[in-house]
């Protein structure tokens, strides 16, 4: 039965680097990371195992708890607003408007900026003594307030604003591509049926571009889980620790605070959370409908 021996060997070989990356880099790192989380390592890895101590400490650290809470707020708002805004923008761009290319570029260009730059520029814009607040007050509206990054309660929303600014364009592009894929005859059918456009978007188009929505959520999700740069550049986690996120928690404890065991405990918790969300989805997506692999 080994007819295509060489060809298949070639295909298998070509995937070896990917396997190597998976096993050595990903799996290896993950196992290492989990193992470290059970030790008392500080700046450097050690083999002094302490069981679940780090996890206990982690969940009694208020900064971690605040980070988790913030992650939920930030994650949900960021993803939802990006989706809604991205969808609205895509819908607007799909209305045979003038200057479509121009608008699309304007909405998309922030995605070329790193989160660091995004944070930097928005920090400046939202700085109450320099930015928008000051400019508006200079115009005569003395009581105008836009001091989110200085406020414990609002700083997290400042992150959302900057994040949305950076990422909504990508969602817009994905959605636009989805909209462009909708059968033109379907649109005609709804016009004959006399269904108002907004209704069509909600009831018919939205379900149709589900794949694009899923992709958007995945990409945004990756951004949320990894979000570190944005916080550092925009609020530094402050005021106090009002806008801390788990990604920054991990980074801080890895480097400045030199407790890699705690940091790895934190990233293990993140990992497990991601796994819990992702595995069922991956399963649905790629295993249930049998992938196409002929030959």
């Amino acid at each position, binding site marked *: 039965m080994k007819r295509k021996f060489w060809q298949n060997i070639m295909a298998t070989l070509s995937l070896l680097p990917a396997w190597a990356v998976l096993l050595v880099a990903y799996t290896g790192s993950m196992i290492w990371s989990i193992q470290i989380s059970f030790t008392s390592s500080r700046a450097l890895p050690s083999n002094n195992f302490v069981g679940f101590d780090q996890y206990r400490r982690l969940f009694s650290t208020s900064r971690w708890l605040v980070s988790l809470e913030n992650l939920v707020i930030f994650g949900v708002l960021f993803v939802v607003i990006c989706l809604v805004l991205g969808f609205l923008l895509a819908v607007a761009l799909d209305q045979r408007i003038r200057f479509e290319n121009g608008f699309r570029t304007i909405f998309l260009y922030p995605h070329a*900026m790193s989160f660091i730059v995004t944070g930097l520029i928005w920090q*400046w814009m939202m700085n109450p003594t320099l930015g928008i607040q000051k400019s508006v007050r200079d115009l005569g509206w003395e009581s105008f307030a836009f001091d989110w990054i200085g406020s414990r309660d609002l700083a997290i929303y400042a992150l959302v604003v900057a994040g949305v600014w950076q990422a909504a364009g990508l969602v817009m592009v994905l959605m636009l591509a989805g909209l462009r894929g909708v059968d033109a005859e379907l649109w005609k059918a709804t016009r004959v049926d006399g269904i108002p456009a907004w209704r069509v978007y909600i009831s018919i188009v939205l379900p149709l571009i589900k794949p694009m929505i899923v992709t958007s959520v995945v990409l945004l999700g990756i951004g949320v889980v990894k979000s570190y740069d944005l916080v550092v550049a925009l609020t530094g986690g402050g005021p106090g620790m009002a806008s801390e996120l788990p990604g920054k928690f991990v980074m801080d404890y890895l480097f400045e605070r030199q407790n890699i065991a705690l940091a790895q405990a934190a990233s293990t918790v993140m990992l497990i959370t991601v796994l819990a969300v992702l595995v069922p989805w991956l399963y649905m997506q790629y295993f249930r409908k049998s992938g196409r692999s002929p030959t």
Partner: protein
Amino acid sequence: MNVSVSAPNSATIAASAVQLARGRKPHRLTAGRIGLYAFLITAAIFFLLPAYVMLMTSLKPMDEIRDGAIFAFPRTLTFEAWWAAWSSACTGLNCNGISVGFWNSIKILVPSVFFSIAAGALNGYAMSFWRVKGANLLFAALLFGAFIPYQVFMYPLVIMSATLGVYNSIAGIVIVHTIFGMPLMTLLFRNYYAGLPIELFKAARIDGAGFWRIFFWVMLPTSTPIIIVAVILQVTGIWNDFMLGLIFAGRENQPMTVQLNNIVNSVTGERVYNLNMAATILTAAVPLLCYFLSGRWFVRGIAAGAIKG
């Protein structure tokens, strides 16, 4: 505009023909249309404002910036900050601006983009057209890998790349970028190839082409739309990377973002906003250019089946 008249060919119509609906619908700016443009323009302002502020600030002298009117047009236009940012801003004892980093970034970018896309394309190809054992598992695991925070990898990867003898070199950082780029690139190409007709592959098999020849001669040349998407994503991601470049590239090869960080985050006296902004814009220039030049292909590429759930 429903003009009801008995029959179209009755004599009465001729008389009242003036009021008959005929020809192109009179085009009126409806409320909806106005609202649409209002929304678009508002959104455009939101997205443009930061860029506008950055640009204006970079063109102002410092005393104008101190006045605080960030939205105002510069009274005296100066490109000094740009020159300074490019060629003379200091990091520690070195005052060469970010121009050095620019070339480092290019040196890192080109091979990294190339290899990560090559790896993704090859993986996607092998997974979609060849029956390789465990391909689905591999793919799912890779995808999951995309969610792992970089930080988790840092120590093990340092040790690995040191073992390989590529630590602190361009080769090292290229390998690291390839590793981190692999999941998303594989996803892109796998989905794209899944949308190509399988007959293309079969025809090539019958023509006697083997694994590599099908890849290079048949599949890659058909992949232009998705390659464009991949290039845009990777150029943005790799160019904007700071952490990996800092740790893996070595002192000689540090990318532009490291220098940007040095300039922007060095705390000394008053912050030189114009220089910071100029440096920021300069640093973002390459990915920005990439978006401006190939933005329309980006949408098409994605529409071509690049990204599906």
